[in-house]
Every structure is written in structure tokens, then in C-alpha cells.
């Protein structure tokens, strides 16, 4: 039974022992918490840059990085759920972009159309999720190829749908860019709130509901899941549709970041999100991982970008450092895991 775990190149993370002493258990909980790795990596990075650059840890910069995280962060949530089932989604960026285009085109004209347009956007993205979900769950084709195919198709479709960049007027579509100040100083946008809420909700759904356990079970051992009477196909389908909805959410977030969209937007979203997911400690073999980790993973990448830019390093050297640090972040994760046993 152990091979899928072993394949994932990690031993089954042992779990807190409730029979242990209270204190011990708490310590355990802490050390065995799968988010520990990415979290400490993030903290290390922040501390590091605060030392080596001026005003990195400024409130402005912090809230800025949070704002920069909303789109990839939201996409990464969908990516995580799919990867938890042992799948992968190369089309998430393409789905989102098509979503933004549909919404923008429909809403162009007067603001009254924005909300209906947004709803239609949600339908479109969910439908696209449904399509890959159907192919994966019914025909049992490898998600990699299915979503790769969808990616190539959608990229062209978007370009046929609209050649050039589309702008949306202020209104419900761009409301996520608005926001208020915490403690008078710390700017927090609705977009940031929304992404944090999304993470929380999804974390709840995955850890505290039957559906969530079924997702993990399917990713863990889908034959066993089938034999315990779980409707594996339905679970898979639900996951891909949910992912589609999350991509629509990301589309909305994108308008919060910038009112303009184009068929060429977010070309590397798929790789970026997979990276965030893996840095977040989720196994590409499915069955183990957390959405919280993925969001932290997304933040880590952004912190590196921001910090290195502010350190005034040339992009070429930035890449080299980024590459090293990303590997280091994951190494840190695997070390904390080892500690945990």
C-alpha cells in the first residue's frame, strides 16, 4: 500500500499522537503541521530581505505583496484541489483568461451589465472545468494531456474571440481593487480579503467535510476509494468544476488588479501555480497537501521577486538567485518533515 507515498519521495508523515501528554501533543501538532515548511521558508525570506534592503518590510510593501498574490493565489487553489486527486491542470490560466475576455466583452458599454457578465463568466469557466473533468473521469485520460490540449485550444479560441486588449470600466468588476486601511495605515483591498476567505473556506471544505476526505482518498488510492463505495467519478468531476469556479474567481481578481485583459495575459499561470503548490508541500502524486501551503508558496515566490527587485539585482542574476532559493525553500520543507519523525 505504501508505494504511492514512497513514489512521492516522502514517507507517510506520522501524525500527532493524541495519547501523548498534552504538551507533547501540541509540540507534535506543531512539528507535524504540513504548513510548517513553507511558512518558515516565507518568514526566513521576509526576514532576510528586511535585513538586506531598505523599506522591504514597510507596511506599503507588505500590503502590496498581498495584493500581488490575489490572482495566482486563487488559481493555485484550483490547481491544488486537482493535484490532490493526482491530476494536474495546465489550462487554468487559459480558462481564466478566456473568462476575463468574455466578461469584459459582455460588460463593455454600461456598468449595469457587469454583474450579469461576471455571472456568465463563472458559468463559462465552470463549464470548461466540467469538460476536462468529464474527459478525465469518464475516459480516464491523463489530466496532463487533457489540460494541455485544452490549453492549446483555448489560447487560440481567446485570440479568435478578441484580437486586442479589452478594458472594463470601474464598477462591480473592479471593486476588488478598492479597500480600506487597517490601523489607519495598513492598506487591505477587498481582493486580498477575498483570497484569504477563499483559502479559509477551501481549507475547511478539504479538512472538515466528507467531500474533502473523499478528495484525499481518491488521490491517495483511487481503487480503495472506489471499493469503499466512494463515487470516484463524481468526486473527480466536482473537483474540476470547483477548480473552474475558482478560476472565474481569479478572473474577477484579475480585474481588481488591472481593468485591462488580453488573450496573451498570464501565459505562465499554469507553471506558476504548480510551482506554488509544490513549494507549498503538496505532492504531485496526489493525496497529500494543503491549500494553505499553496497560498504560502505563491507568497514566497512574490516575496523573492519583490525583494530581489528592490535589492536592485539584474533580472538575469535575479533568476539565478530565485532558482536557488526556490530549491532551498523546498529543501527546508523536507527537512522540517524529517524533523517531524
Amino acid at each position, binding site marked *: 500500500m505504501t508505494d504511492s507515498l514512497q513514489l512521492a519521495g516522502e514517507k507517510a508523515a506520522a501524525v500527532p499522537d493524541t495519547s501523548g501528554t498534552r504538551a507533547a501533543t501540541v509540540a507534535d501538532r506543531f512539528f507535524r503541521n504540513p504548513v510548517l515548511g513553507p511558512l518558515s521558508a516565507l518568514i526566513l525570506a521576509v526576514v532576510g530581505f528586511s535585513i538586506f*534592503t*531598505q*523599506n522591504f518590510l*514597510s507596511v*506599503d*510593501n507588505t500590503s*502590496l505583496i498581498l*495584493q*500581488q498574490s490575489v*490572482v495566482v493565489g486563487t488559481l493555485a487553489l484550483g490547481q491544488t484541489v486537482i493535484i490532490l486527486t493526482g491530476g494536474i491542470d495546465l489550462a487554468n490560466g487559459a480558462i481564466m483568461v478566456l473568462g476575463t475576455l468574455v466578461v469584459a466583452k459582455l460588460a463593455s458599454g454600461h456598468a449595469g451589465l457587469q454583474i450579469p457578465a461576471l455571472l456568465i463568466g463563472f458559468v463559462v469557466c465552470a463549464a470548461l472545468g466540467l469538460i476536462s473533468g468529464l474527459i478525465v473521469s469518464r475516459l480516464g485520460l491523463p489530466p496532463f494531456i487533457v489540460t494541455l490540449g485544452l490549453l492549446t485550444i483555448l489560447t*487560440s479560441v481567446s*485570440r479568435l474571440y478578441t*484580437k*486586442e*486588449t479589452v*478594458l472594463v470600466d470601474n464598477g462591480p468588476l473592479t471593486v476588488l481593487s478598492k479597500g480600506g486601511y487597517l490601523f489607519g495605515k495598513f492598506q487591505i483591498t477587498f481582493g486580498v480579503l477575498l483570497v484569504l476567505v477563499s483559502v479559509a473556506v477551501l481549507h475547511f471544505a478539504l479538512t472538515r467535510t466528507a467531500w474533502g476526505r473523499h478528495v484525499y482518498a481518491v488521490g491517495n488510492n483511487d481503487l480503495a476509494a472506489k471499493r469503499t463505495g466512494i463515487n470516484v467519478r463524481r468526486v473527480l468531476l466536482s473537483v474540476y468544476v470547483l477548480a473552474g469556479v475558482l478560476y472565474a474567481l481569479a478572473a474577477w481578481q*484579475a480585474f481588481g*488588479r*488591472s*481593468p*485591462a*485583459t*488580453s*488573450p*496573451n*495575459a*498570464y*501565459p*505562465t499561470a499554469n507553471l506558476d501555480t504548480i510551482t506554488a503548490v509544490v513549494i507549498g508541500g503538496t505532492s504531485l502524486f496526489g493525496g497529500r497537501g494543503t491549500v494553505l501551503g499553496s497560498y504560502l508558496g505563491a507568497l514566497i515566490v*512574490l516575496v523573492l*521577486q*519583490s525583494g530581489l*527587485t*528592490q535589492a*536592485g539585482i*539584474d*533580472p*538575469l542574476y*535575479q*533568476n539565478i538567485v530565485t532558482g536557488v532559493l526556490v530549491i532551498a525553500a523546498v529543501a527546508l520543507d523536507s527537512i522540517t518533515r524529517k524533523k517531524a519523525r
Partner: protein
Amino acid sequence: TSTKSGSATSSGGSGGTSVKIGLVTKTDSNPYFVSMRSAAQKEASKMGAQLVAAAGTADGDNASQVTAIENMMASGVKAILVTPNDSKAIVPTLLAAQQKGIFVAALDTQTEGNKGVDATWATDNTKAGVEQGAYVKAALAGKTPVLAMLDLQPGVSVGDQRHNGFLTGLGVPDGSKEIAGKQDTNGDQAKGQTAMENLLQKNGNINSVYTINEPAAIGAYTALKNAGKANSVVLGSIDGGCTGVQAVKDGKIAATVMRFPSKMATAGVDAAVAFAKNGAKPSVPASGYIDTGVQLITDKPLGGLAAKDTTWGLQNCWGGAS
């Protein structure tokens, strides 16, 4: 856009003593932008300014440049030079920067309607296309073109401008039967070669080739050479990278149209520093941007087209030396 709000109020606490200038290129590793960066770097250190550089992920991708610009503002730059990946989408971000009293200039590519920038130093890509087209037309010497077009990728403005410019210069409308076939190459040499090979299989009579840039052209040349058509087919290109010019010199490419990234960079940095010193902004011509020009490079000047030879080209090319 507010000029008097000035650099004093620029965000995030100013970085150190020297002026901080930000440069955001389209991508990080494309030689064109690498040489633009190093030119800017040189000029900046000459002017005693500090250059902070960042790049987007891919042509057409706006979000990555938005992030980069935000990070620069956070690091307290006085001026931002940007080569927009999306001329239209970037505008709101640039306006926001100007709000903060930051001097913004576009390089290489104009923003839509030159909005959101205090100045622009750019190449007219359409013009570049026209010159390549005109030369190919001349080189065909009256023969009806059987044209293969090696494009960039759909929906990227630079690609469309050069493509359309070329057709104008050649004098054939898009979609006409003279066009034997089109393929996307992403400006990549290997893809250019494969595309050319497949197009030659489709139509053996191809006698003229448009290429989006010199790597694609070199790929196409290899395909033509293997097919024994290197001499019978007119191969034009755009960019003016040193290997490109060398390829013209070696007779692989008939002609290329040079652009001048370092000119743009130098001018941009100078203006930025000037603004930081005394809030002065360069005067922008009616066209809305300062054209750093394009130059046809060939050793076989034809049809009275103003051309410079490859010796001149190799002295002024970008990439190799810098």
C-alpha cells in the same frame, strides 16, 4: 499628469543618495532587451544614477510588468522606463505611477495613444516592416512573389505591425494568393526552421520569405539551404542584432532592418536623470513619440532604398558587443 508634485513626494522613502531609475523590459533573457539594459546601465552609472531593472514574463503579458512596476515604486524609484508588453493594458498602472510624481517613459514600444507616459523613444515597427517588404519587392525584380511568412505569435502588436508593414511594402494585401503560407515561430530559430521546411513541402515555388526577427530568419535560411534554395529565395528580416547583420554579411539574409535599443535606453536614462534633478521633461514631437529610427542593412542596395552596408551595421548592431 502632475509634474510639480515632483520627486520629493515619491513613495516609500527614497533609496540612498543617488537617483534611482527603474527599467522594465518585456522579457529578461531576450538579447534585444539584455543589450537595452546594459546600455541603460552604462548610461546610468555615467550619470551617477542607480538603475533598478526588472522584466515581464512574455510579450503580451501585462500582469508581470504591473508587478515589476509596483515593486519598483515600492523601492522608491524617481523614474520608470518601460517597454510595454501590452500597450493598452499597462496604461492604468503607468498613470498611477505618474500620480505618485514618478517620471514615466516608454521605450521600444508606444503605449496606446501615448497615454500614461511623459515621453516615448520607440521604433516604428510598421515602418520597419515596410522597409523589409520594399526591399524584398525590389529583390524580386518584378517576379510575382510566392511568399512564406514566419510570424511571431498571434495577437502581439509588434508581430502584427511588422507583418502588415511588410505586406504594405511588398504591395500585396493580406490573404491574397501570393502568400503561400504562414506559420508562427515565436521568434525561435528551431521553430522557424521547422516551419520553413514544412512550408517548402507545401509549396516548392516559394521565392520570398518574411521573418519576424533574425533567429527565425537564420532558421529559415538553414531550411532553404538544406532544400538547395538558399540562393533562389529572397529572405528578409528585422532587428539588427549583430549575428543578424553578420548573417546579412555572409549572404544568408538578403537584408535586415536595424533597430536601436541602446539609443532608446540612453535617451531614456538621460531624460529620467534630468527630470530627477530639476523636474524637466523632454519635448515630445507631434507624432507623440521620439522615433529612434530604423535602418535597412544590406550589401546589395536596390531600388534606391536608403540602405547602409554591413560594415556600418556591425559597428552599430546590438547584442554581440554590449
